[in-house]
């Protein structure tokens, strides 16, 4: 609350600074009429002053907020009775939590001892002091910044360039977040993976034919054997992805062709967004649908045909995943088909080719690299898809390519390993991170290849 107030005041000050900056710049050249004598527009002098006023103060505020907690905490602790002070760190935390609850007027447990009440009062007063201090410090910083910025103004001063370079650094900062995200991903899975490979040889992990990670996590438990061969997971993942692709590629591609080449504009106007609804449906819904509607349906029909269908058949998960991917393929294909220049169509039609001949012999071959790139992207999406397989695919790592059997996937294993028991020294939990790393690498390679292909293709027509 107090910080909100502070920020509001700060914003007000910045507005004032802006105004003062504008005024000063105008005054220096003898009123608004002399603006031509300035290097930049008056508003840039305003922004410049406002930045000087606001930026240091905001940085200070940020520091203050992040440090305030621990400083106050230390102060409170030093005032607590000896006995409490010597408690281990963790318990001290609980006491502090209690004091904070008390001070904030939250409900607390049990009777309030006088020391606690006193500490809470102390806490409150410290908090007040801190806020007061922060007001003073930050506002004086703002005012100091303001006057500095104000002083710097002169007609030759390149205010626009300064303001723009601050802005530009801001933009640059934002664009690097992607790098940090990737770095974060790699770091958050890498260390655990390294520990994992310390216990399980990487060759066994990559080439092992058996996956049975649910090993005992306590000495007095008997789990499964603890085999960490990732091949069955990958075969399962790829099997499901393959089924998904077999569903999504023909339907998606043909839909795209039909909608962009044949359909009347009216039909397209309705069919396209309707089809794209599929892309917006959350995967948890697909999972629900796969587990409760599609899987039983396939089972029952398989039964009628005398087939032995597992109730978490790869087919069911793959089919539903395929449905999910249809719009992905169709809109990507749509893009690349539309990127084939009209002149290609004209050339083919001009020779007397029929529409389908034009599509099959000219447009598709020309768009092929783009479509292949799109399919690769879709494959990487299928490999990484989680909720559908968590809800509809199996858990047992069968090494099979029979779509009627149950297989498991990399993502399913990550979820089961991490949502279940967690023992951060056991290869069982660490395996989840190794799988995460593997998944990241595989999709990375697929994506890089796919993006290359797509980009190269796009360039060809630009």
């Amino acid at each position, binding site marked *: 609350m107090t910080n909100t107030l502070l920020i509001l005041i700060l914003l007000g000050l910045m507005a004032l600074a802006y105004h003062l900056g504008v005024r000063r710049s105008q005054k220096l050249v003898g009123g608004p009429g002399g603006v031509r004598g300035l290097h930049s527009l008056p508003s840039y002098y305003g922004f410049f002053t406002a930045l000087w006023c606001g930026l240091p103060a905001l940085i200070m505020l940020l520091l203050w907020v992040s440090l305030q907690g621990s400083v106050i905490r230390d102060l409170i602790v030093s005032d607590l009775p000896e006995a409490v002070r010597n408690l281990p760190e963790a318990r001290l935390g609980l006491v502090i939590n209690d004091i904070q609850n008390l001070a904030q007027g939250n409900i607390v447990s049990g009777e309030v001892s006088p020391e606690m009440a006193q500490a809470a009062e102390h806490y409150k007063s410290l908090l007040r002091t801190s806020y007061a201090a922060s007001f003073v410090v930050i506002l004086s910083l703002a005012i100091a910044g303001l006057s500095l910025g104000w002083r710097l103004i002169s007609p030759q001063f390149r205010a626009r360039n300064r303001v723009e370079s601050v802005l530009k650094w801001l933009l640059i900062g934002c664009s690097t977040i992607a790098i940090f995200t990737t770095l974060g991903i790699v770091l958050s899975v890498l260390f655990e993976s390294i520990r994992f490979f310390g216990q399980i040889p990487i060759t066994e992990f990559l080439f092992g034919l058996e996956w049975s990670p649910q090993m005992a996590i306590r000495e007095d438990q008997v789990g499964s054997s603890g085999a960490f061969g990732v091949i069955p997971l990958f075969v399962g993942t790829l099997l499901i992805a393959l089924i998904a692709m077999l569903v999504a590629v023909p339907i998606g591609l043909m839909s795209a062709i039909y909608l962009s080449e044949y359909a009347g504009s009216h039909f397209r106007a309705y069919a396209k967004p309707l089809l794209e609804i599929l892309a917006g449906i959350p995967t948890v819904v697909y999972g629900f649908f796969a587990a409760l509607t599609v899987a039983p349906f396939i089972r029952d029909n398989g039964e009628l045909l005398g087939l032995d269908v597992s109730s978490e058949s790869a087919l069911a998960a793959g089919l539903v995943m395929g449905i999910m991917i249809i719009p992905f393929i169709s809109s990507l294909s749509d893009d690349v088909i539309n990127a084939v220049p009209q*002149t290609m169509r004209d050339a083919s039609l001009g020779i007397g080719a029929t529409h389908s001949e034009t599509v099959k012999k000219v447009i598709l*071959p020309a768009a092929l690299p783009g479509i292949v790139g799109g399919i690769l992207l879709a494959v990487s999406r299928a490999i990484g898809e989680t909720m559908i397989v968590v809800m509809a695919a199996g858990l047992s790592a069968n090494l099979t390519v029979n779509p009627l059997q149950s297989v498991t996937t990399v993502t399913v294993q990550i979820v089961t390993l991490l949502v279940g028991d967690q023992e951060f020294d056991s290869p069982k939990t660490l395996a989840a991170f190794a799988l995460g790393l593997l998944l990241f690498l595989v999709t990375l390679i697929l994506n890089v290849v796919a993006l290359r292909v797509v980009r190269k293709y796009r360039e060809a027509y630009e």
Partner: protein
Amino acid sequence: MLSVTPNTAGVVTLPKGLVGAGFAPVADESRAINGTVGDITAVDPRMTARNVNVYYGDKLAINDVSLDIGKNEVIAMIGPSGCGKSTFLRCLNRMNDTIDICRVEGEIKLDEQNIYDSSLDVVPLRAQVGMVFQKPNPFPKSIYDNVAYGPRIHGLTSSKSELDDIVEESLLKAGLWDEVKDRLAETGTGLSGGQQQRLCIARTIAVAPEVILMDEPCSALDPIATARVEELIDELREQFTIAIVTHSMQQAARVSQRTAYFHLGQLVEVGKTDDIFTNPRHGLTEDYITGRFG
């Protein structure tokens, strides 16, 4: 209605100083369009268009144009930008069908057959009336496949060697054979602009069409490539009937036997090329030829 006559001059408000400065088309009676000046018929007509109107949606893009295209002649269509040259040309093999909002009225015949007859099939029509476009547009396939594309889809050949022959012959006719005979498997898009355009011409003649339509075939080419293509057009005239749209009067003068001058959707004047350029009969044609605008 679309002509620049004094009675519509109020709308376009010609600037006062302009006439004196000699910039603007002189707006007098001689610039009114009342039907086409000159002889629209050809000696031995291959295609005949009569009273053709073309609309894009509600917009009239071609207004009552009649014109014959004679056998073994090159007819050039010139006129300022947007006057409907391309539109008219594309009517001749129904390429305008591909534009949803485009509607064609009137009669266009190829050898006595109305090509806008509902019973008529565009596929064989376009095999008979081929087209070469402004920007060279080879398929991103091999040179061989580019040329073989037409014969293949139309099933014109029954054996590989027959196809080879057609490809070779077409490339020969297009004057490209010597340049590409050793690299038929390379992709057509790797050729230079002028070569690409000749490849497109080879692709068109490979199906042995009767008429070839060319829409500014040289406008994307450099002078040397242009010269090469112009020479080719001159050679092809012996076998094919050619209609060419060009924005360059010089080019029209160089390659064509007859020239048609379009203005704002109307066919203003048509006649022997020599006559048109040396002795234009219509005021608008004269203005255009003498560079008063354009």
